[in-house]
């Protein structure tokens, strides 16, 4: 059903003048004609290009003409019958046309921005961090490490737990002897400081500036002194490569990037955290492999069997099945059969291996947290 000479308002999109016009809907010839108050045609819009403004708060209907982009002119109808007739006659009234070119643009932009952000996170920031880490003076790095250590103490320590550093002198001496043996023939930018803390978590980590912290849980789990030596050698690898400070720079570079992507959308924070964890896992894999290689080389120099590193990874793999919590070293150092096999391949069959510490000394290390 069409209509003729219905009152409407018209803006031609060229001047701010409001014009009182009449519109006629001709369904047969598929067009909407706009006449001025004298009856002359102002504009003729084909029905297939007719679009209605959506989410409109007004009671009437705002129309424009344009299949892809809305044209400049507007017709505003208030007549309910005319509105109903137009709705019935124009199937495309609310159709949004996305051209293939626009789709191409969307795909190109999504691809390009993803690639650019990935390049930034996985290539540029790590490379830059690696380049810059070398220029940080070792003595400054030691101070950063001490600050980080205090921060960790504050985080992990209940205020009434007392002294959490295990300082049994015999154990400490044995531990230092072990660390000394594993440093053979290797220059470190700073003095290595090994310490044990009284915490059940199976964990060990290297901090900036040559601090290596072993948690009691890890010593409890180790079956032989060689396994502890293997872990120490691995952490020494991180120290030698200045990984901790480099990781700190990397973390700074990608901090907040994911929350930028996800915006303040509800639930976005949790997703961002998960993403950060994924990124750091990806980043750390080759770092870990390098530390493994360093450990194997130092163990060979110290005469410790590389078998110990393999055994320790296998212990961790077992442990992963047992406990869901307190993963510690496991989560930051994903153990795998491949890494164990890599270590085992370094075993020289015809060679006699020795221990870095005597059985008595190993016992002292095991009791380093006992008063």
């Amino acid at each position, binding site marked *: 059903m069409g209509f003729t000479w219905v009152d409407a308002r018209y803006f031609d999109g060229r001047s701010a003048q409001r014009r009182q016009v009449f519109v006629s809907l001709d369904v047969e010839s598929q067009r909407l004609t706009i006449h001025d108050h004298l009856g002359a045609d102002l504009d003729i819009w084909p029905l297939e290009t007719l679009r209605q403004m959506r989410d*409109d*708060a007004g009671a009437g209907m705002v129309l424009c003409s344009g299949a892809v982009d809305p044209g400049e002119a507007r017709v505003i109808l208030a007549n309910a019958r005319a509105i109903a007739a137009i709705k019935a006659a124009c199937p495309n009234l609310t159709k949004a046309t996305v051209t293939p070119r626009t789709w191409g643009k969307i795909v190109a932009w999504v691809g390009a921005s993803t690639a650019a952000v990935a390049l930034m996170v996985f290539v540029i920031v790590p490379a830059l961090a690696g380049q810059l880490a070398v220029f*940080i003076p070792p003595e400054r790095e030691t101070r950063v490490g001490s600050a980080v250590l205090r921060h960790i103490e504050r985080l992990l320590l209940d205020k009434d737990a007392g002294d959490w550093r295990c300082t049994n002198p015999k154990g400490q001496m044995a531990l230092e002897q072990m660390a000394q043996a594993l440093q053979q023939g290797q220059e470190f930018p700073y003095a290595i400081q090994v310490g044990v803390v009284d915490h059940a978590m199976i964990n060990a980590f290297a901090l900036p500036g040559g601090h290596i912290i072993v948690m009691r849980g890890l010593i409890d789990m180790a079956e032989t002194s060689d396994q502890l030596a293997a872990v120490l050698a691995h952490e020494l690898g991180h120290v030698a490569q200045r990984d901790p400070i480099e990781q700190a720079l990397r973390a700074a570079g990608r901090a907040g990037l994911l929350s930028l992507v996800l915006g303040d959308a509800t639930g976005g924070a949790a997703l961002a955290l998960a993403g950060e964890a994924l990124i750091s896992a990806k980043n750390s894999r080759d770092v870990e492999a390098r530390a493994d290689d360093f450990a194997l080389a130092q163990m060979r120099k110290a005469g410790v069997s590389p078998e110990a590193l393999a055994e320790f990874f296998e212990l961790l793999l077992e442990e992963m099945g047992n406990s869901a919590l307190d993963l510690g070293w496991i989560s930051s150092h994903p153990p795998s059969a491949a890494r164990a096999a890599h270590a085992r391949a370094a075993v020289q069959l015809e060679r006699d291996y020795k221990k870095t510490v005597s059985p008595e000394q190993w016992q002292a290390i095991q009791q380093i947290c006992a008063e």
Partner: protein
Amino acid sequence: MTDTLASQGEGAALAPAPLDGAFLTEKSKLFWLAFWTGFLTVLTLGIYRFWARTRLRRYIWSAIDAGGDSFEYTGTGLEKFLGFLIALVVLAVYLGLLQVGLSFIGFNLWGAVTLEPSGSRDVLIQLGVTYVTGLAVLPLIFYAQYRSRRYMLSRTRWRGLRFGLDAAALGYVWRALLYFALSLVTFGLLIPLATFRLEKYMTDRMWYGDANFEQEGQWWGLYPAMKHLLIALAVLVLGGAVGIFGSARGLGTVIIIAGSIWFLCGLVYYQVESFKYLTAHKLLDGTVRFTSNASSHQVIGICVLGIILIAISSIVLSVVLWLVFGIVLASGGSVLNGGGAGIGIFAGAGVAVALVAGLGYLASLVLIGALVTVFISAPILGHYVDTLRVENAQPLEQIHQRAGDRMADADGFADALDIGGAF
């Protein structure tokens, strides 16, 4: 309706009648639009937010009426999404490099700071290192503010003509930084200077069709608007003095609380009064003038009423949620799990409980967001619109269309940096 509009139009042509603003929304329609688009945003992990904001703007703009003709928002969700992608790349590179660089400097400076900050100098250096990242983002924030205003105006039409803002964001950035610093070092005494100069910078570059806006007036004309902020400050100082020197700690606390409330109201008062002053001194095309009769009492009233309403609905909502939660918990999840044996039941119950809790939490966030829009943001905007008047509308008829402003990045920077007002 058409008849009255027609006579109005003709009347305007004969005698220069003023043109009044009016804000015409239906609360229920607005609520469902805000709620539904918020829901879709959550469902799409945030991607729909560009379309959500666009739809909300379209609705709000079309509810703003001046002299019988409503505004129109022509922005699209797609261009906002693409703009966001562009901004994302720029920000990822800028922020990534900046933060690596700043941390590097920070680590190198660590030696300059004693391990435990002992003196005020050490504290200052450490604070400096911590906040320098924030300061480095500040220029971007001002840049994004200007760009987002420009985008918004270029997508706003009234009577078929576009608004516009010149491409001059960089000039805005250094001015904003300068005035921001000036306000900071004078403890806020030069805030009127910052407000005025920045508004003038934007207004002088703002267009309706081919007609230019102009900001007249003087920056010290905004000092009367600071009245209640200064009184609140005096009250706060008095409260502190009574608490410390007068040894009447209870009285001091009461005075400080009163002063804080006064300060908040003073902020609203400054907003409203400075808007009125700036509006009264705006000029379009050298002839058209504006008046705002906005009232800070009304705005404060809207806020208080809105907060009470939202608080009540939040309490009702959380009671309902806890009831549902309790039912699910009590039935051991068997409603959703359909039964099972041994550990299966517990696992199922856990999943069901977590699901109900998570969905309830998200739904409440979306709901509260929609309520804030309906009961606070929209009514405040509505009040400003209702009290706005164009004094002599007749010259408006002579104004012509301006060319469109493409802006590929849309207001992506504002989106990525999470700035921009309620709409």
